[in-house]
């Protein structure tokens, strides 16, 4: 926002003392109440406002503390934002960023726990990014802000505490490039958003059995770097996509299908994991079962490699434990 006075940031609660988990701290003071402001609870119209502002020459960043609330804004996102450049015959750009948070429920239950980014992957005209490291979080955000098309920027609440190296100067992470985060030969694990962390942990568990997993972070879900994933699968012959969302018509199905389209000449074992096929339950006993975790991911990868011949699930290891997370927030 410092570099470009046309950037505007707004959304419910961006200007309160919690400042969206600190991510908008001090921006009002720095850039003023005209460029940084909280809004009424009007997701539909405020998304329309973002679009109109973008057409007027502004680069809006619209922040939502939960992805679930975007269901109120689908009309503007799907019917307007995604289609404006095309409907205008390419004459106008629509540079806007929608920051939407997803999370791991912690008893929040049905309506505060969804990911739903597959909806945005479905519709041509939108880009989707779900970074998992501090480096990519910053670089992708700057990419998204500079992008002349609408970008859905998906933030996982648990990842907000993830540490890692970040250059202080501005830099961009290019759209459509995945990262191999662990090299391996026996199975390809694609972990989306927070599930990237679980996949990396799973790869360590798998070492106990002598299985070497290649772990890939797609970072951008659209444009998707299918080449990097397909190349890995060509080598390993096995693909497990671990998503932070329901499976049906999800990112996992898409990645698997694209890999098969790219590698028609080889018989590939595929699998996918994600939310259980139910609404998110708040009871801790059920919530535990709702999400994949490093151990269940490792177990599933093991099955793929060993053709389901034997089963195995690792003992929990303290050094690979889950991060502590505690509400309310």
């Amino acid at each position, binding site marked *: 926002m410092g570099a470009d006075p046309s950037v505007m940031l707004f959304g419910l609660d961006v200007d309160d003392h919690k400042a969206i988990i600190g991510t908008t701290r001090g921006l009002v003071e720095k850039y003023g109440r005209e460029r940084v402001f909280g809004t009424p609870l009007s997701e539909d119209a405020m998304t329309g406002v973002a679009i*109109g502002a973008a057409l007027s020459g502004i680069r809006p960043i619209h922040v939502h503390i939960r992805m679930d609330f975007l269901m109120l804004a689908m009309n503007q996102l799907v019917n307007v934002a995604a289609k404006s450049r095309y409907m205008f015959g390419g004459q106008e750009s629509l540079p806007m960023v929608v920051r939407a948070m997803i999370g791991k429920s912690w008893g929040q239950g049905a309506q505060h726990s969804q990911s739903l980014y597959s909806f945005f992957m479905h519709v041509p005209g939108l880009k989707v990014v779900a970074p998992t490291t501090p480096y990519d979080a910053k670089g992708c955000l700057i990419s998204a802000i500079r992008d002349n098309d609408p970008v859905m920027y998906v933030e996982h609440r648990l990842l907000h505490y993830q540490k890692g190296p970040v250059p202080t100067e501005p830099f961009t992470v290019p759209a459509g490039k995945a990262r191999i985060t662990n090299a391996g030969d026996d199975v390809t694990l694609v972990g989306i958003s927070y599930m990237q962390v679980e996949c990396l942990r799973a790869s360590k568990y798998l070492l106990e059995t002598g299985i070497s997993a290649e772990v890939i972070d797609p970072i951008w879900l659209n444009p998707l770097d299918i080449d990097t994933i397909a190349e890995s699968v060509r080598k390993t012959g096995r693909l497990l996509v671990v998503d932070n969302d329901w499976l049906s018509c999800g990112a996992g199905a898409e990645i698997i299908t694209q890999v098969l389209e790219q590698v028609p000449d080889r018989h590939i074992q595929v699998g996918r994991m994600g939310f259980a096929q139910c609404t998110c339950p708040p009871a801790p006993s059920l919530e535990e079962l709702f999400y994949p975790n490093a151990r269940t991911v490792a177990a599933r990868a093991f099955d793929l490699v060993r053709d389901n011949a034997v089963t195995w699930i690792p003992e929990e290891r303290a050094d690979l434990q889950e991060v502590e997370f505690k509400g309310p927030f």
Partner: protein
Amino acid sequence: MNIKKVYRELFRIRRVEEEIARIYPSDKIKSPVHLSIGQEAVSVAVCEALVPGDIVFGTYRSHALYLAKGGDLRAMFAEMYGKVTGCARGKGGSMHLVDIPAGFMGTSAVVGTTIANAVGYAYGLKLQSKPHIVASFFGDGAVDEGAFYESLNFAHLKQVPLIFICENNGYAIHTPQSARQRDVNLCDRVGAYGIPATRIESGDVFEIHRHVQEAADALRSGQPGPFFFECLTYRWKEHVGPNDDFDAGYRSREEAQAWMANDQVRLAGEKLSDPERMEVEQNVEAEIAAAIAFAENSSFPGASELTTDVYEESEQDGPDDFVWRGDTGGHGSGDGRGPIRDAIWSGC
């Protein structure tokens, strides 16, 4: 207002749409058309109060608004024909006319959607200290939608330089307003937001213009927006398509008669001398004939056009050689390197 200019605008819109209706059965226009015949006065009256650089947003029924705001007629016909010379290169269609240089910003086929876009544009103008104003056009159907009220609230909260124009033709498709709203008084509803709201019942192009000009002047002199006008009007043709539909049963020809007697195109024409009027008409007819010929002679977009304009065509960014060294348990292992929330903060 210059009467000759007003007549030219009104007559031109009327004739363009009559031509569309004439051509339609030939199947050359393969796109649903929502004609404004009977409603021309509202667009003309409002746009006469606007200046270049001002912006309008409309609906799928916006041929009149497009033309009144100065949209390119040849590009309009070409768009209807689905030609690559169309105002949206054949990617918009009749419902999605656009003319950026003219300030005709876009329309939507989903009722009510451009209202918030117009508000956002007006906010953007304010933020960039641009001296222009926005007019947002929509029908009486749009005021059923919740997004309209959200937009009113935000527009008033931020005092944006905008004029809301409700073209109330009494129907949403075939459903009269009274079947959708009981005891409705739209201006009361809008007025309750603190927004000056005026209902103009006459359909008179000069009366509408007078009111809107006043509001536009107020906005230009820095008074806080928005303003709201409900302009009663009447659609002569069926909701979509080129035909009459008075035999369909949902409305009577009698109801229409008062509006037809009040035809603003004819009435404006009568204010001119015969030679003046004929000069206007001949020029318009020639322009229309040329525009249709242009559309007919233009090409359809080629196959390569199909998937362009979905995203900006950009050069591939250079490679990026950051390697994450797998800080898998690293939520607490900070060595002063920022957590993601700080990274997002610093990206903003």
